[in-house]
């Protein structure tokens, strides 16, 4: 109940938006997710309560983006700082969603929410004030890549919400960066609707500093013939939870997901994906990699749901895990729920360590053990990193990961 009181005392009632009120009401019936439910069973309870401990911060302190200068070829937004976006060019337009559109869409989403599955979204929407919600409608062709930043300030709990409508026949590269500061909690919820024939290359890179926490939820709706590629990377969080909900609303859509999480010290990072096929001819190819070192805990839970209507679905899911320390833990649970009979569905999971034969081979060629394991790790990382858009040239993600190791 503490968190609800906190939200209530934080706001004077007349400032609350309608959405905040609805979500707060829903949260009131069960303020915390059920720790016994399948989705929250492995989540570290004390870390979650630590997430909620910080005081709510609605106004951002200015922050310096620790990344290369904004080049002309990309468009950059920071959630919470932009206002009045209206970019209308010859080939494309990027406009802010009107208040009505935004409200209508979010309300519709809320009507599908389930208490445990969407607890992160409920929390986010009851915390997010008007300033911290960014709604975009993107239309046209030859759109330059977009970078969207979300960040938390030290010693506070921040909530940011992003809503994107990708209109028909649109193609877009989007990179979302979530940055945690020391002792901070960030709740980020993203809602993306891919209209017919649109295509999105989406990258999600999240990393924190000392003891930062993250609840990152991604809700994607894919209409017919849309194509969605997601490359994600989560590391350096005391506690992070990445929830991906993808719904192929009428089938005939393609989804590719490549995600990775890296945990060290006593960190816990989990990825929970739920992919629903609500029409025929859906396609999914998913790979999730985890690397757990020291005393950390990495979790992957993926479910693929194929109801009767989703005939001729082709879905595959692979969970590959590296366990590097005696005290670390890995849990993985790829899951299939299938009713349609004319489908091809498969999943696989492996947990192992670095290949000793490969290490030995490299060492006989004069490469030191540290170098050799770095080489192995870089090939392990590379598959995911090369799938994240925009970052290729400008962000040295690989170096960052390897130097951390």
């Amino acid at each position, binding site marked *: 109940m503490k968190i609800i009181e906190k939200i209530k005392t934080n706001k004077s009632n007349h400032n609350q938006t309608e959405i905040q009120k609805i979500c707060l009401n829903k949260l009131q019936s069960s303020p915390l997710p059920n720790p016994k439910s*399948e989705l929250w069973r492995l989540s570290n309870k004390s870390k979650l309560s630590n997430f909620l401990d910080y005081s709510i911060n609605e106004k951002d302190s200015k922050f310096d983006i620790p990344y290369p200068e904004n080049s002309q070829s990309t468009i950059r937004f920071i959630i919470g700082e932009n206002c009045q976006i209206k970019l209308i060019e010859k080939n494309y337009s990027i406009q802010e969603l009107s208040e009505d559109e935004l409200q209508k869409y979010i309300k519709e989403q809320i009507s599908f929410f389930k208490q445990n599955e969407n607890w992160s979204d409920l929390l986010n929407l009851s915390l997010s004030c008007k300033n911290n919600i960014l709604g975009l409608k993107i239309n046209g062709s030859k759109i330059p890549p977009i970078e969207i930043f979300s960040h938390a300030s030290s010693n506070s709990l921040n909530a940011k919400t992003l809503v994107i409508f990708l209109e028909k026949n649109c193609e877009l590269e989007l990179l979302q960066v979530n940055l945690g500061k020391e002792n901070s909690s960030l709740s980020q919820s993203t809602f993306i609707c891919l209209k017919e024939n649109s295509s999105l290359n989406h990258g999600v890179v999240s990393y924190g500093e000392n003891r930062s926490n993250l609840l990152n939820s991604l809700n994607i709706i894919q209409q017919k013939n849309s194509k969605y590629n997601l490359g994600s990377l989560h590391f350096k969080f005391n506690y992070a939870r990445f929830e991906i909900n993808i719904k192929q609303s009428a089938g005939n859509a393609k989804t590719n997901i490549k995600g990775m999480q890296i945990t060290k010290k006593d960190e816990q990072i989990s990825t929970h994906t739920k992919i629903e096929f609500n029409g025929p001819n859906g396609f999914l190819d998913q790979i999730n990699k985890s690397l757990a070192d020291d005393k950390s805990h990495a979790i992957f839970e993926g479910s693929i749901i194929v109801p*009767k209507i989703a*005939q001729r679905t082709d879905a595959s899911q692979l969970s590959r*895990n590296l*366990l*590097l*320390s*005696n*005290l*670390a*833990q*890995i*849990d*993985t*649970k*790829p*899951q*299939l*729920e*299938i*009713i*349609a*009979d*004319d*489908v*091809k*569905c*498969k*999943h*696989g*999971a*492996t*947990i*192992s*360590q670095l290949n000793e034969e490969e290490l030995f081979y490299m060492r006989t060629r004069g490469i030191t053990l540290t170098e050799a394991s770095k080489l192995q790790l870089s090939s392990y990382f590379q598959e995911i990193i090369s799938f994240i858009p925009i970052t290729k040239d400008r962000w040295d993600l690989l170096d960052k990961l390897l130097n951390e190791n």
Partner: protein
Amino acid sequence: MVNENLVKDVVKEPYKYGFVTDIETEKIEKGLNEDIIKLISQKKEEPKFLLDFRLKAFKKWQKMKEPNWAALGYKKIDYQDIIYYSAPKQKEKISSLDEVDPKLLETFDKLGIPLTEQKKLTNVAVDAVFDSVSIATTFREELAEHGVIFCSISEAVKNHADLIEKYLGTVVPASDNYFAALNSAVFSDGSFVYIPKGVTCPMDLSSYFRINSGDSGQFERTLIIAEESSSVSYLEGCTAPMFDTNTLHAAVVELIALDDASIKYSTVQNWYAGDEEGIGGIFNFVTKRGKCLGKRSKISWSQVETGSAITWKYPSCLLLGEESVGEFYSVALTNNLQQADTGTKMIHIGPKTKSTIVSKGISAGNSKNSYRGLVKMGTKATGSRNYSQCDSMLIGDQASANTFPYIKSQQPNSEIEHEASTCRISEDQLFYLQSRGIEFEEAVSMMVSGFCRDVFNQLPMEFAAEADKLLALKLEGSVG
């Protein structure tokens, strides 16, 4: 290869074990309380330690809640509306088979279970359990020559109380889960096997469980102990008559393998599954677990699950001994409105332990078939390996197939591999078979049999043939 005529014969038949034997039985009143437990214990003339064990389990059970995490839906079970003890009336203790009620022998004859002398040639020792009581155990003397103890658990309580006291509840403690606690409180009979050091059991041992009365539950308990360097193969079969009420079956099986011992446990479960509308059928809630205590010990589960309205069953292995091996081979077939949530748990505790899981699920009709398995590598399980493979086959677009593998590792120097796939009967293959003059249903049952080959290969000969027959029978009318 499926015998063509056999399949034809079999496909025509309804559930052929659905008859009721009209025999005088002794039943106690419905309901469950301490007095009932004391009465059961008294009827079986049990020593005090066992009564205490039962009462303790009952206390625990009262505090527990029925689990609801399985992907199963069934109407609430009224535990006070069940008869917890039912036994065919027998005037005196029987010393040989000739004194067993001929009706009972006839029943087992009908079921194809060789109890009578002329059928003993098959070289399988059988312990037949009818409702709550073990009726007869064959080949006793021959087994005794080798020092093998094979008898009903009630006899073992009387004659080998020390072994029972030492091992009962050590693998599946009374508080393990709701149904195990219930079983510990009211278990009526079951089989007991003890293989002494260095003995390879000279023949396969087999138990046959038969539920006869409609309102009593069956709660059997099996305990198998394999001493150092011994080995045994154990078969289990189950049938029940057709009733339009649901009957509860909650069994517990405990296996213990010491150094270099090996136990192979095979089950063909064919309880009555209810009719096409889902009326009647057995609710099958079973806890089966084996403990590989000794070094290089091995426990292998193989099962063919075709019956029961509800199946809730996870035969597991606790791999404690160094280099111990656990195996699980399963075929689960559901049709009409059957629901099965079944799988295994492989808990790797000792170093260099190995486990293999091969699970084949076939769902037809409106049924629901889930594989749920856990593979866990503990912190000391260095150099351990697991390989799992779960394949599902869907027949018709109303059935559902789910896979829930839970994989957990705390040991970097171990490897886990898991694979799962879902498919349907390939139309190309069907077409090929049909173009060669094989009828549609026959072609389907051939393909199903091929799909399950990996598991059937692990079954003892006579079981493999029975399993093939069963699958063909169960799939009748589900395709096309």
